[in-house]
């Protein structure tokens, strides 16, 4: 891999960030993290209250990369066929015709995923994991790049079906957008006084380019000690006193991929332990389950990851760590 390849990733990141920033005020770090997931071919779980710009961010991303966008509003009566698509009988042709569901897009927003029944959740998660849909025995390949942004409301749990741990593990990273600051909200109001800027947003990239960059990211160099750090960090979640269920090997793989994508977006063709540390809270926090007593104490999985990032040795140089 050449430096030019990495530079093209960084340039792409800059262009998309600038484009999305026309409709999203602030949230630069979150948008970059969104790009990390896109370049690593992962999916995102957005945990946030309504009205903070989740749909806008997904739409802006879809437009920026010139991809297709669709939205699934998850409700308890949502059926798997409402997601994947259904074969209907065409009377004129006298044959069944497949009508694709909303999953057949490149950027899919699954709003309030925890309101869908486990059956519908499973069908969505299967599509995410395998990148294909099977309807009536026929398999349809989902077009790459394929990114699902699933949202769930972290405050309302009544009438919801919380995602089980195994399903959560399928999400590449979990993101919180949070409320905007006072200044940011002021700017939002100013900007949205007239026509919504999303209407004039144009693509700054193509799905083909994204596919190429996804391959570039996998070639970002990972030095042995950094890989070792990723593994030790993930393993330490399994032995932590407050953790009931630690992160899986899928978690360590996701952490390494995310660090690679982050490094490439920074214009580097190798990853640093700092990249791993930056990505760890996004990638690992939703993959661990705390013990009930720790939860009662008000401890969060982010706190545990933060503690581990301070204690797990980076081992830059054996001598340097004071050993």
């Amino acid at each position, binding site marked *: 891999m050449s430096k030019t390849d990495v530079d093209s990733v960084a340039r792409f990141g800059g262009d998309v960030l600038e484009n999305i920033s026309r409709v999203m005020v602030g949230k630069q770090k979150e948008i970059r993290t969104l790009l990390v997931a896109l370049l690593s071919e992962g999916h995102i779980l957005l945990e946030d209250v309504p009205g903070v710009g989740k749909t806008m961010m997904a739409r802006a991303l879809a437009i920026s990369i010139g991809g297709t966008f669709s939205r699934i509003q998850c409700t308890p009566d949502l059926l798997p066929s409402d997601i994947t698509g259904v074969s209907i009988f065409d009377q004129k042709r006298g044959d069944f015709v497949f009508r694709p569901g909303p999953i057949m897009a490149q950027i899919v927003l699954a709003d309030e995923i925890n309101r869908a029944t486990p059956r519908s959740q499973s069908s969505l998660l299967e599509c995410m994991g395998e990148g294909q849909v099977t309807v009536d025995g026929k398999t349809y390949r989902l077009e790459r790049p394929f990114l699902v942004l699933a949202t769930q409301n972290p405050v309302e749990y009544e009438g919801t079906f919380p995602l089980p741990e195994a399903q959560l593990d399928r999400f590449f990273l979990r993101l919180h957008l949070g409320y905007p600051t006072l200044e940011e909200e002021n700017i939002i109001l100013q900007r949205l006084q007239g026509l919504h800027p999303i209407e004039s947003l144009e693509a700054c990239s193509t799905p083909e380019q994204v596919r190429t960059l996804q391959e570039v990211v996998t070639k970002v160099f990972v*030095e042995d*000690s950094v890989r070792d750090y990723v593994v030790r960090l993930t393993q330490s979640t399994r032995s932590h006193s407050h953790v009931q269920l630690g992160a899986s090997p899928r978690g360590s793989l996701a952490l390494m991929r995310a660090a690679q994508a982050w490094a490439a977006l920074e214009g580097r063709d190798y990853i640093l332990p*700092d990249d791993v540390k930056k990505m760890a809270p996004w990638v690992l926090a939703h993959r661990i389950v705390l013990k009930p007593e720790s939860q009662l104490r008000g401890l969060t999985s982010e706190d545990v990851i933060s503690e581990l990032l301070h204690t797990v040795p980076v081992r830059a140089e054996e001598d340097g760590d004071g050993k």
Partner: protein
Amino acid sequence: MKLKHVVPSLAALFSFSVVSLVGQYISLLYGGWTFPVWLFAVIFLVSFESVYFSAFFLSPRTPITVRLLEVGSAVGAVYVIVRLTLSPLAYEWFELSQAIRDPYVILPALLTLAAWFMAGGYGQQFTVIHKLGDQLGDASASTVSWEYESLESRDYGVTMAIEYFFWRLFGYGFLIGVLAIAASRSGVVDDLSRGYRLGLGVLGIGGLSVGLILQGAVYLFRLETIWSYTGTRVSEGFQKDWFKNLAIFVIAVVGIVSIAPVNYSPITYDRLSQWAIGLFQGMDPFTVIEGDFQPESPPHSNEEMVEWGIGEEEPSFWFALVMFLYFLVVVGGIALLVLLAVGFFLVMLAKDELDKLKGMPQLAVRIYRAFTAAVCGGLMALRDLWGRGKNVLRRYTFSPTDTLSAERTHKAGKKRGPSGPVLHIRQMFQRIVRTGREVGIRMGPGQTPQEYGELLREKLPSVNTEIQFFIQSYNEVRYGKRMVEPEWKERVMEQGQEIVRQIKAWGKEEQ
């Protein structure tokens, strides 16, 4: 390295070796003519000229007069040199009918002509290889196996160039073998000075090595030509690997040829060499084969002839057993050699398909791998021994501090750790951390070099730029495996030393 320019040189060197050796042995066996020293230079020049001309300038449109002029000038030059060096001759400059009967003229001229033909033939084959590549490229050939099918199914009016090289290598090798043994058995070599004999040996072994290298290089050249025409992408290290393996193979062959006896076939070199002696010294070859040959000059005894099977006495059982075992070892050696050669070509050509091979090809690959592993192991052991020897030497010649540093470096090397400039930069980072720890700026276990750099920048704003530069450089070397240029390394080390100085100064101020 462009093979296109190298293979003609190899062909020229091989032609030169073969023709010079043949000339030498004719001179030794014939006795009526001495190989002049200047003829080496003529054969050398003619070989190079002919092969390069044929490879790069000869085309179907080249007029025959150009070729005649070329060969005429070479032979004419020989005639002029002979006349000037052996002047006065018994005949005039233009009495060519006399000249062609004079061995001092005709033999150098024939050898020059032979070198010209031989080298020119090789040169023409290189153009044939290009032609093949061009035709295959036009036919959009994409694989080597497809290439053979294509050649077989379509008549291009050209022979397979590799066969040409192989049969000539084999034929010239056989010719030189016969002549060398004839010279040895007739005893003429014994009368030669040690330097002369050494020269013959060097020329022979050199010729064999160059011939084998030429064979391997031509094969690679042919493949590269075809690949270039078909647009096939080959890994960059392929050529290097090829020549590395070829070198091992050539060393093995030269070693075996140097120690191999000659009487392991019904048609022995001895018999053929006796026939050659007879040919050159005017004896009846058939009489020689019957064993009645007694050369007049130079004299040698029949006891020197190591001809078993024609002895007067019946060999004893033990003698027969030893000979049988000896025969087995020799046959085994040759079989091994052939398998090594086959293994070499298979490994080079079917890298990813080796697991699918069965039977003899699989055995050849295994033998080849075992052989290369053994050679590499031996070389590694020698290198290790050399390294140990150097360390021991250093221990006795260096100061205690140097020895300590060398040991530390050696220890790091054992762990396959960094070496040279990379190690220096990493050691400088360790020094910064140690110095920082001494004055109270500790690096936490979970801290990355970048984070430690930020801590240092907070404490030492005066060297902000230096810290930033050093940490970035360290990261590139440590995690990015950046190549370290000497000037850049010097700059990094200077910045590192400055940081250490500032940390110490900060420590004193704090006290």
